[in-house]
């Protein structure tokens, strides 16, 4: 941008705008929308390796956790999904996680995806301004679609009139479930934030009633934003999108999950019934085929939104038939 405006002044503003315009077109020529670069043909080709969603008689445990489901995943064959930085839509970011292993099973009623990836740090809180959560998301095309290179279906957040259903597991939502009221409060992070961040939890200056009574001044709660809502009862958010920046929380939440962080690796299981009543949800048929894609967020690297580790291709998944089929 640094250029002499004396010249510009002499030749008038027209020259300036021409100069700017041409530099702008040169830099952004390959953009398909402001801040969005076009996709390569490769990305429209689904991966070759097919994920088999194995039929297993799961015997749903009373308390759903990674350990009690471990046995059910034993015979399922996983695939490795390579991950890379998100480099198409502003803001770009991610790149700290290279890949994840995905396994899937179903019992004719519920489908379970198990995702495992290495992450040296567990980031399960997003209360401090500089702290971001670890998270993982699965994405499915909505409706019965066959994805081929000829039939472009964006593997990145879908596209206009090509909606996707996303399941977004959040580490802090899981932590929320373990506390009273099902929302980790600011006191979990700052025991006495109202009192200059001091750490005495018994300050005489704390007027709980005044400070917590007026929900309308909690904008997110007044607007019923699921992210702000206490007692969600789940760790996975059910969403839709039709391209970058269109991510929208569904009215009806159907997905749940559980996780375990051990030895520098996350294992997350996300599950939902094969069929739901919600027209905005992907539906699974035993014996049928679908596609999925995924992304992982590394909180320690300030990953959030488009700053994430993504897979750039759809992955086919085939559900085994149930035993009585």
């Amino acid at each position, binding site marked *: 941008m640094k250029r002499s*405006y004396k010249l510009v002044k002499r030749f008038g503003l027209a020259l300036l705008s021409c100069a700017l315009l041409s530099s702008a077109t040169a830099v952004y020529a390959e953009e398909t929308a402001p801040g969005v670069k076009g996709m390569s043909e490769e990305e429209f080709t689904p991966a070759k390796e097919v994920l088999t969603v194995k039929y297993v008689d799961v015997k749903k445990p009373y308390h759903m956790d990674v350990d009690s489901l471990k046995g059910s995943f034993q015979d399922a064959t996983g695939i490795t999904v390579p991950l890379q930085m998100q480099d198409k839509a502003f803001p770009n970011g991610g790149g700290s996680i290279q890949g994840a292993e995905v396994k899937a099973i179903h019992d004719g009623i519920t489908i379970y995806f198990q995702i495992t990836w290495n992450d040296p740090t567990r980031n399960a809180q997003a209360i401090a301004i500089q702290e971001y959560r670890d998270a993982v998301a699965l994405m499915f095309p909505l409706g019965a679609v066959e994805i081929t290179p000829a039939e472009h279906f964006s593997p990145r957040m879908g596209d206009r009139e090509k909606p996707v259903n996303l399941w977004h597991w959040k580490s*802090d939502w899981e932590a929320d479930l373990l506390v009273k009221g099902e929302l980790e*409060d*600011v006191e979990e992070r700052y025991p006495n*934030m109202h009192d200059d*961040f001091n750490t005495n939890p018994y300050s005489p200056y704390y007027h709980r009633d005044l400070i917590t009574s007026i929900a309308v001044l909690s904008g997110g709660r007044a607007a019923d*934003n699921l992210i702000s809502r206490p007692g969600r009862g789940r760790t996975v958010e059910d969403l839709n999108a039709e391209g*970058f920046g269109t991510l929208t929380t569904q009215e009806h939440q159907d997905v749940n999950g559980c996780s375990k962080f051990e030895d520098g690796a996350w294992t997350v299981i996300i599950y939902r019934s094969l069929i739901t009543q919600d027209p905005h949800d992907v539906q699974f048929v035993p014996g049928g085929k679908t596609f999925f894609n995924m992304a992982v967020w590394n909180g320690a690297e300030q990953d959030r939104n488009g700053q994430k580790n993504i897979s750039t291709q759809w992955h086919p998944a085939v559900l085994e038939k149930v035993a009585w089929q």
Partner: protein
Amino acid sequence: MTLVHNWHLGRRMEYPYFESRPKRQFAAVFNINRCIACQTCTMACKSAWTYNKGQEFMWWNNVETKPYGGYPQSWDVKTLRLIDSDNNVWYTDDKDEKLSPYGVYEGDTIFETAARKNLNQWAVGYVPEDKEWRAPNFGEDVAVSKKQDEFSTLPEHSRWFFYLQRLCNHCTYPGCLAACPRKAIYKRKEDGIVLIDQKRCRGYRKCVEQCPYKKPMYRGLTRISEKCIACYPRIEGKDPLTEGRPMETRCMAACVGQIRLQGFLDDNPKNPVTWLIRHAKVALPLYPQFGTEPNIYYIPPRWAPRSYLKQMFGPGVDEAIDKFMVPSRELLAVMSLFRMTQSIIFEYAIEQGPKVFETVIHGKKFEMFNDTVIGYGEDGKEIVRTTVEEPIHVRDPKHYNSI
């Protein structure tokens, strides 16, 4: 990116969205010279909007001591570094009253720096950590102490500080709005107020990162971001006190030092805010080089070093201070409107009064007339009438001792 005109910079600049100016723009003029840092404005905002849980650290309005104070700490120094502060070069030989009243900025804005450096995001920025928001009054009243003479004398004091009153600038080209990948931030067409949609926000903190003024704030309780809402219910005339007329915000109305006048920037040269900013040119934008076209305008402090002020308010500083130090008859009258009413003044008129005083200030003749200035509301009705000489009210002897 598209090209939009930024009149603060006197040129077109790159911005992710098309130019789309509101019908009238929420704006205010702050006279830094008169602020006493009483923080009444700060508390007026806090007690209205941010006394709730998770907002303890939030000061949508704050008053900091310059040069050392900053909320969050060193916000301006850090952002200036990001755009390379030595870039603050202006071409001022040729100006256009409408398009480039201060000249042309030759450096890069926050948006252009991000593009030039191929950062693959809309603007440069950073997210201040929790500890940076904690002590909003760090550096209060700390002067730069360069002891040269026994006494400091104008035009520049060798020992100095001043107060900077800050809130969201409801920018014409908001960095926060550009940064939000979800388009959860919007600028209202009717008054230019910039708001975060509390339903769409997902707590990504990109607005916190790319607002150069650091005015969006992340709330741990709701895990999404909040910011100054320009007291929009008051602006919309929802407060019964003004009977449906647009009303100035809490932080403006509460100002003890009477340094604030809020209204709308529009095309009416007899609108006091428009007149002060666009015609008298005594009030200047804060860090125009960031490129967001901020809408809180400041009358710079006359005693602080000009180089510092030019970095902060751009090249219009000398002219603004000259005009403020030896005010014109009209300026004196318009400045008398500050804090005379809570209703927003849309137009003013002056009735001439007698000459009451005459002197020489810095070699320039100054005459004072006791003119009457009248403020009109949106409906054209008179809402305030005052004189340049402050009216004196003598209390009835019967009430001498009553409070």
